[in-house]
């Protein structure tokens, strides 16, 4: 590391500066994120494990059909049997909280980018940057700004999981046929009516793909974020690596796969519902 350009020094200076001058802002942000996550975790932990299994299976049945319901039921029972239930609850709470933040921030940003070419031109390279940057790199500033624990983990998860949702919202809206927009205008729709009555409903399947992507990415990032104290199933994998316990690492890995498959099937099922209505 003996380059001519002291980029590393600059970044450190910048982070130091932010740490000193924006402490209040980050404290508030931390409190908000922590509060949101804590409530989700509390609720999930409060429900007895068997009740949560039945509840999730029923949700799967309602929105994604019988097969997914059976898959959910058996998968969750297996996790309970492996003894990683508490880890699963922690991971689930992180993923749910992160995805809610992604939706609340990402969809409006995607809509904005779809309606303004300027915003689109600014957002796109930022998203490219966020997506191509190795996920480990997020951990460092998050760690410096927020310390260890679920909050910096959530921040890095949101940053990692949000880009495809923004991108697909933007894309979904822009893909709506110009002739439909013209028709909507011809009948005297306001720009907001065009958005809510034509663009968003037609972009919904694409946006749901984005939500599905966000969930999957959040899950994978939650494993990496266990290095900065995210906790959950990622811890099992981390222990497995650091202590060379192959079995424990495998249990962690297979548990994550099960959670991933269940979440994926559920959101795919919901998306399929929407599609079918149209065709």
């Amino acid at each position, binding site marked *: 590391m003996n380059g001519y350009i002291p980029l590393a020094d600059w970044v450190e200076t910048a982070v130091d500066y932010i740490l000193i001058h924006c402490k209040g802002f980050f404290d508030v942000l931390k409190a908000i994120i922590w509060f949101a996550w804590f409530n989700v975790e509390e609720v999930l932990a409060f429900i007895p494990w068997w009740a949560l299994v039945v509840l999730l299976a029923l949700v799967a049945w309602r929105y994604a059909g019988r097969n997914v319901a059976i898959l959910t039921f058996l998968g969750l029972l297996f996790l309970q049997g492996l003894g990683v239930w508490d880890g699963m609850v922690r991971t689930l709470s992180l993923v749910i909280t992160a995805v809610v933040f992604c939706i609340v921030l990402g969809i409006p940003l995607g809509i904005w980018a779809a309606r303004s070419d300027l915003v689109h031109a600014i957002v796109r390279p930022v998203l490219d940057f966020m997506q191509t940057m190795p996920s480990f790199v997020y951990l460092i500033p998050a760690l410096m700004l927020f310390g260890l624990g679920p909050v910096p983990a959530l921040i890095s998860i949101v940053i990692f999981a949000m880009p495809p949702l923004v991108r697909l919202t933007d894309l979904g809206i822009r893909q709506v046929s110009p002739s*439909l927009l013209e028709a909507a205008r011809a009948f005297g729709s306001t720009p907001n009516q065009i958005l809510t009555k034509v663009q968003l409903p037609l972009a919904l399947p694409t946006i749901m793909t984005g939500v599905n992507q966000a969930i999957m990415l959040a899950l994978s990032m939650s494993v990496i974020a266990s290095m900065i104290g995210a906790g959950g199933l990622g811890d099992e994998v981390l222990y497995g690596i650091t202590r060379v316990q192959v079995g424990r690492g495998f249990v962690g890995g297979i548990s994550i796969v099960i959670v991933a498959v269940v979440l994926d099937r559920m959101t795919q099922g919901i998306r399929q519902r929407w599609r079918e209505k*149209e065709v």
Partner: protein
Amino acid sequence: MSTAKIEVKNLVKIFGDHPQKALALLKDGYSKEEIFSQTRQTVAIADVSFEVRAGEIFVLMGLSGSGKSTILRCLNRLIEPTSGSILIDEEDITRISEQQLREVRRKKVGMVFQQFALFPHRTVLENAAYGLEVQGVPKNDREERAKATLETVGLQGWEHAYPSQLSGGMQQRVGLARALVCDPDILLMDEAFSGLDPLIRREMHDELLALQDRMNKTIVFVTHDLDEALKLGDRIALLKDGAIQQIGTPEEILMNPANEYVARFVEDVDVSKVLTAEGIMKEPGHVLSHKDGPHVALRLMRENGRSSLFVVDRGRRLVGLVTADAAFEAAERGQPDLTGVLVRDIPTARPDTCIVELIPVLAETKYPVAVTDDNGRLLGVVVRGALLAGLAKKGEEKAS
């Protein structure tokens, strides 16, 4: 009929980043090509003026790139005109605010699109009700009105289907219902039937004309198909390179093309399908009252060199026809009037009857065909010679 519903004055549309530069050149009389090579701006509509009368079907016709669809979209400002004015009910819509423009689009001007442009995520009923929905009409109310409109276009029973479940013709009926649901005075139709099979298309033409009879809208219809224009149009504007070549009734365009381009455009038309009885009929000349005697009839025939005369009542309504032979016979027998020898069962036609329908009638009868209006009043007469002359005139033009 004669009041102008839409008045377009000196409409210009230039596509490009610097329309004002091109506009100045256009005013100086430069051609489209010269303007493009100098400024890289495309003149889509070059100084077009016309008016559309209330209750007529006005057809904008031309090949692709002639600017017809652009003109149509200027009428409700889906495309902003570069200069000129567009008056709808004497209000210049190029000068009104976005808010007022939305009101015009909601209440006054309905539109039907070439590829139907139905909303795929909405049912037929929700599509038809769209115009009311954006106006904030309560759900029950708007669904009731949409249902009624769907019925007028023959789609009852399909309310809860999605557009993708319907055939092309039915989809365009939904498009028509969506445009009609707000009961606008004006209907803009952009190649509305071009995407349909010929058979379905003909059916839709007839239905549109039937609807128009009942509703009496002002319709601006864009098409590239001359047959369609001739069939639907009360008047036709023929466009080329964003300029109007000729405006006139179908017959005027066919019989008196304004220039070489129009003449070439219409040369392949089967005249017998377009030319109407009104266009080739002659003045009926002298007619007889049913109280006239046979001697009067014979004298009139002799003086006018006719072998038969029409007989009308006091309201000039057609009663029948008297031939020279019959009048002679009546005179011989000393009958005081013509009632005994009147031929009442004679062929008649309406002014808008096509020649193609008249040919078999004329071939079978030995009498001239009387042209009467809806009340039975005698307007004119068509004889074989006039029909042949009408067809021949067109033929000569083609040959020369």
